[in-house]
């Protein structure tokens, strides 16, 4: 599986999903093309999915928010008789590298979270209309919906058969959502999760695994009615204004990926990459409708879409570049102006979407298992929305003064806080990056509020606790070289674990638990001989042979 994965798609090109829009509702219909797998060696039978299927889903969920403000509720269902979705394709998983499996699971989780985010924050509610068997990832997909309806035909069931069948865990938050979101009693959940065939009909309703079980003849009408009721309670605009998510302007070279506002430089020999984000080139639009007019060209949206794609590129296609340097470039005051605009117009549907999108992209960055260092240099624009990138990094380095050997008259490095840094972009555990940063020093957080709008030079930023290390020109190069070489020398696994532990102190949310459990338990189990050894369950899946387990409890 060394094929380059491209995340760009469009409903015109979907092979696995049908998107039907009939305002105020939409239908997302899963009809997987068996022969349409991303890689060789497996067929996507029974509406099973691989990364290609999920890229389309992520695309559809995203477009529904921006391109269809008039859509207020979405029904997810299947076009296949008796099958809703049988989850991730097992042969695909069995043949995939561990790296791909982990990236795949993380991405599918992010898509499920985006579905929940749409329901909760965009007021575009999702309903899962389970019209057949929903097994494993199929039920997990349904779990992302606000309401789950199942056809009560004596056959259709929901199940999480990973433990009994595959010796792994449901990889898309299934276990966590069952007890945390659906609040299924934990002993019943234990029974359910060991039951290959799952539960159906009223039994599933009683267990709270689904909301309603409905006879076949009444099923469609009931689903339709519920979706329309949810649509009626939405605050999304009726007007058919639409922001089309145009294809990203992207050029891939051997050692770089160039977008309009983002550049990625790949240093394969040094095993690191530099990701640079550029500030806006135009002034802030007059008002929200002017921003809406700009649509996908509106700088915060354009830039964040590119950043999102760049992060996915690095995750999937450049797995050996373990360290990422995060840089910005542009006019800090202009970035701050945009940021204030995003705060002031937050009620407008489009601006709301842009803010929510930014929030998701920043979370994606947080959850990327690479060492991330922010480099705050002269000419950079770490203000507001872009300062969040620095706060997402594991450490930040700020230059004091100028680079002696450069005479480009770049303004000195500054960092600028805006109101946006204090609430608009919470991370997966519900706290802002500054709240996380100052978990043990609430007074520092208070002080930071008083610095809003000020261009903080290195010393001031360090005093405020906003950067890790301040360096001058004399030390900058050497320090960074040593930092990089040391980092590259460490075990990537240990770093991933360490960073994940340190990035999210403070409370847990369902979302943070899902990723933590994925990183810790699922990834561990996926590596164990009981799953992937020569006699492991995943290895033997499909051969008819029975796995042999090392019975030692760890």
């Amino acid at each position, binding site marked *: 599986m060394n094929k380059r994965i491209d995340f760009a798609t469009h409903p015109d090109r979907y092979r696995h999903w049908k998107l039907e829009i009939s305002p105020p509702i939409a239908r997302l219909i899963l009809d997987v093309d068996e022969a349409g797998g991303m890689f060789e060696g497996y067929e996507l039978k029974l509406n099973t999915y691989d990364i290609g299927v999920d890229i389309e889903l992520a695309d559809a969920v995203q477009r529904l928010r921006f391109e269809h403000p008039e859509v207020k509720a979405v029904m997810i269902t299947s076009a296949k008789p008796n099958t809703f979705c049988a989850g991730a394709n097992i042969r695909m998983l069995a043949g995939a590298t561990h790296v791909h499996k982990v990236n795949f699971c993380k991405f599918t989780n992010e898509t499920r979270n985006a579905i929940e985010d749409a329901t909760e924050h965009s007021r575009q509610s999702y309903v899962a209309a389970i019209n057949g068997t929903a097994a494993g990832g199929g039920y997990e997909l349904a779990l992302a919906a606000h309401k789950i309806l199942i056809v009560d*035909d004596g*056959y259709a069931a929901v199940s999480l058969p990973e433990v009994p069948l595959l010796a792994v865990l449901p990889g898309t938050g299934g276990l966590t959502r069952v007890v945390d979101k659906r609040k299924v009693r934990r002993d019943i959940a234990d029974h359910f999760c060991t039951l290959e065939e799952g539960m159906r009909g009223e039994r599933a309703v009683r267990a709270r695994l689904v909301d309603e079980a409905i006879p*076949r003849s009444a099923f469609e009408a009931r689903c339709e009615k519920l979706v329309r009721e949810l649509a009626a309670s939405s605050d999304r605009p009726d007007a058919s204004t639409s922001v089309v998510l145009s294809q990203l302007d992207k050029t891939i070279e051997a050692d770089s990926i160039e977008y309009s506002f983002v550049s990625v430089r790949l240093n394969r020999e040094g095993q690191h990459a530099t990701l640079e984000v550029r500030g806006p080139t135009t002034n802030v639009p007059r008002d929200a409708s002017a921003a809406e007019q700009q649509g996908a060209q509106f700088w915060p949206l354009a830039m964040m879409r590119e950043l999102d794609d760049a992060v996915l590129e690095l995750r999937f296609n450049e797995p050996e570049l373990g360290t990422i340097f995060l840089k910005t470039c542009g006019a800090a005051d202009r970035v701050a102006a945009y940021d204030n605009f995003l705060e002031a117009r937050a009620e407008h549907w489009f601006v709301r979407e842009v803010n929510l999108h930014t929030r998701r992209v920043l979370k994606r960055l947080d959850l990327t298992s690479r060492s991330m260092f922010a480099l705050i240099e002269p000419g950079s624009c770490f203000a507001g929305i872009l300062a969040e990138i620095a706060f997402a990094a594991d450490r930040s380095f700020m230059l004091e003064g100028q680079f002696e050997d450069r005479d480009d008259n770049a303004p000195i490095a500054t960092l600028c806080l805006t109101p946006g840094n204090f609430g608009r972009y919470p991370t997966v555990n519900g706290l802002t990056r500054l709240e996380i940063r100052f978990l043990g020093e609430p007074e520092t957080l208070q002080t930071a509020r008083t610095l809003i709008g000020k261009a903080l030079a290195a010393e001031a930023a360090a005093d405020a606790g906003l950067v890790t290390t301040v360096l001058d020109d004399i030390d900058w190069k050497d320090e960074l070289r040593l930092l990089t070489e040391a980092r590259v020398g460490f075990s990537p696994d240990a770093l991933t674990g360490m960073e994940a532990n340190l990035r999210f102190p403070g409370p847990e949310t369902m979302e943070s638990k899902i990723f933590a459990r994925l990183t810790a338990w699922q990834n561990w189990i996926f590596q164990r001989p009981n799953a992937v050894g020569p006699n492991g369950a995943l290895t033997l899946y*499909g*051969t008819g*042979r*029975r796995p042999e387990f090392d019975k030692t409890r760890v």
Partner: protein
Amino acid sequence: MANDVSYDTLIPNNVDLSSDRRLRRALETWQPKFLNWWRESGPTDFQQAEVYLRTAVGVERGAWAKFGFVRMPEYRWGVLLAPQEEGRTIPFGEHKGEPAWQEIPGEYRALIQRLIVIQGDTEPASVEQQRFLGHTAPSLYDMRNVFQVNVEEGRHLWAMAYLLHKYFGRDGREEADMLLERTSGDADRPRILGAFNEATPDWLSFFLFTSFTDRDGKMQLESLAQSGFDPLSRTCRFMLTEEGHHMFVGKSGVERIIDRTSVVMHEHGITDPGDVGRLHELRVIDLPLLQRKMNFHFSVTLDLFGSEISTNAANLFNAGIKGRFHETDIDDDHQLRDDTYPVLTFKDGRFVTEAMSAITAINARLLDDYIVDCQKVVAAWNKVIKSHGIDFELVLPHRAFNRRQGMFADMYVSPGGAVLNEATWLAEHDSFLGSSEDSTYVLSLMKPVDQVGEYADWISPPKSGVGGKPGEFEYVRIPS
């Protein structure tokens, strides 16, 4: 182990029900639900008729059935297993050679339960599909046959319900109830497998269904009769003795239709089997129409075998739960760790035979065995045609024809095996699978004949009667 059927409980059985109070209670709770199902979904309007039926009174080969007049709701459905073989071992899979399981192994509980549910679901389904046939029976003899088939499918349902109750606890009881709640062709709760939701609107369909679809039942039962789970094996072995009669009804029914058509052609000097005008005027079923209907029944039945290459089938084989047809007669290690099996596939624009992992090709092999069995049946039918000197041959369609399951599901293939495009397929659809005119014509023939010894125009009398009685016998006494 007693082989005679014990009537000391409400439920005839040879499983010592009287000493298993828990099971007896469970089955006695289920029995009224079953009878309720029979009244609602069994043959319409003939519940009071006295039918000359055979009832199982023992499980010894050749001496198990007693004939007599019975009202169907009073039929003694019960739980009958073939005699237990001392020291039987698991004949295949990774547990080969270990003693056969008398209790369900926990790790295979879900696998076996699902298998029994799917098999069990087909038994009542065909009763539901055939419930109106009594009204258009071409003779009392045939009416009796369909009722015999129905009550025995009912007993097969009992057999599966017994296994569910006895070995699968609460889940099993729930599944046994669900067997009665799903209904063939129902909008809300259809039967699990597609072919069992198709209508059986007329007697031609019935005979073809019992010829082809019940023959799939035989193949499935034969494979389950090999099971390492001994109670399942014994249950299926006994069911097979009854299934044989059902296939006989189908095969001989079609034979009698062919005979009648041939006789009429001969009498009227018709040499062209496609002379529909004259043959329909003479109220018989033309052979090309029979071929089209056969194409339909054969192809939808192939779908019941599932995917040719199947992980599930491999798991079942390896676990020792479902074997191959005549497993113990096959000369190999019965474990198939490294064996291959030739499987017909479609590659690069043509059908080719490819060696595939034998254990995942279990279904493909069973399909091969099934087709061989069907070919024998068709050969017997062709012999009848030939004996009348008619120039026509019935041919089984290609296995890729009209498939909805398995590796040929997305293709358009003619009965002869030519790969077509969608447009050609649609244009030829009726000539392949029969038209609505075909169905209308067959339905127009379906007039009840209920006088003793009389037969409808479109079918010959049987060579002999049943249960020691002649063809001319009042097999069903219908209260006036």
